[in-house]
């Protein structure tokens, strides 16, 4: 935990995996960042109907394991559903994953990992 706290200092960006409107809105708030070339790594991924699950999973992998400067990953709940297994097995403290609603898919408490944890705690 002590190491992860030191680790937390460098994590200054929020990443987004979402549909175009979600990404546009959040980028309007100023969280978008592209690292200096030649890397030019983005901290967001726009997902549409044509985006394959493998691409979403690769982006999630990149934001969680490769990049050490991301503290929160915001992901649309319906997109998280597409890689649900990967999301549910992710347990690291950094970066934190937060599922957010999208335009066509309102927030569903049934799928919320925090509320599922609550049920588990009281159901024991």
């Amino acid at each position, binding site marked *: 935990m002590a190491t992860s706290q030191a680790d937390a200092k460098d994590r200054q960006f929020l990443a987004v995996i979402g549909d175009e409107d979600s990404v546009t809105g959040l*980028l309007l708030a100023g969280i978008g960042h592209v690292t200096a070339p030649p890397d030019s790594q983005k901290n967001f991924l726009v997902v549409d109907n044509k985006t394959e699950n493998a691409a979403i999973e690769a982006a999630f992998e990149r934001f969680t394991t490769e990049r050490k400067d991301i503290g929160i990953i915001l992901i649309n709940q319906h997109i998280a559903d597409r890689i649900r297994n990967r999301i549910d097995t992710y347990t690291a403290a950094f970066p*934190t994953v937060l599922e957010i*609603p999208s335009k066509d898919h309102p927030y569903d408490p049934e799928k919320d990992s925090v509320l599922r944890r609550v049920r588990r705690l009281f159901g024991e």
Partner: protein
Amino acid sequence: MTTPPLPLHHASQDQPSTTPQPSPEDYNTQIDALLTRYLFLLNEYTTLRSSLSSLQSGMYQNLARANFAAERGMRYGKEYFDERMVAGRRLRVLPREARGEEDIWEEGNKDKEEEKVLEWRVVKVDEDGNKVVAKAEEKNGKKAQDETEKENTTQQEGNEAKEQDQDKQEDTTNPETDRHQKEDTSHGPQQDDGNEDAEKPDDDDKKNKIKKIRNDPLRWFGLLTPLPLRQAQTQAIQAVEQIIPRLVTVNTEMAQVEIEVRRARKRREKATVKAKAVGAEGVVGASA
């Protein structure tokens, strides 16, 4: 909310030990206190969730409005993103001392490092990643408090929006000002707002303005952006600055309490088994 410490004088007289063992009831009290705190956190979490949902749906509506009113073929989306964008709002993760004294449990102190709860904040920064402090506060030499800062930034956004509105109105009503403005914009983006001021701003102010404007994602979509798009931006900023970091903080805190509850439950089980064993010994001793 703090967990009440265990009463120290609870050992039964049968136990002559110098270090008194907590009874299962004591653990029950502790678990209840933890669960009460957990429910408060859960309440905050659901409240934050609903405000995030309403802010985001407002943002989506405004984006849809902006897209509806836009020129044919124009869509406020990924095609206009600046490939060299720099984050103007960044995360700060600070360790916060959790409750100070409740960990007087047997193995409690060795985990002290774990008991620190992390606090997540999103702050406005300049291009180099330094925290932006509002001008008025700098002049008055006041300490920059986060809340006032947030207010200032949201107010600034609002003022900007108003100014741009005025600009737009002038733009459509008066062709002379239109021409005048076009000249202005050809000089550079720093003339965009505050051109009514008679006083000349300092060089530093100018530089700051240029930086601020260059760093404003609204500029990806042009100089005069529609009102719904600016409203969408205001809502997104509110979500990113106030709701999301708090949600993550509450989530971490809840996870921490869950661990403590499970730990306390295990210890309660152990204590119950011990108490039963002691009771049985007592019965055996009495019958013999």
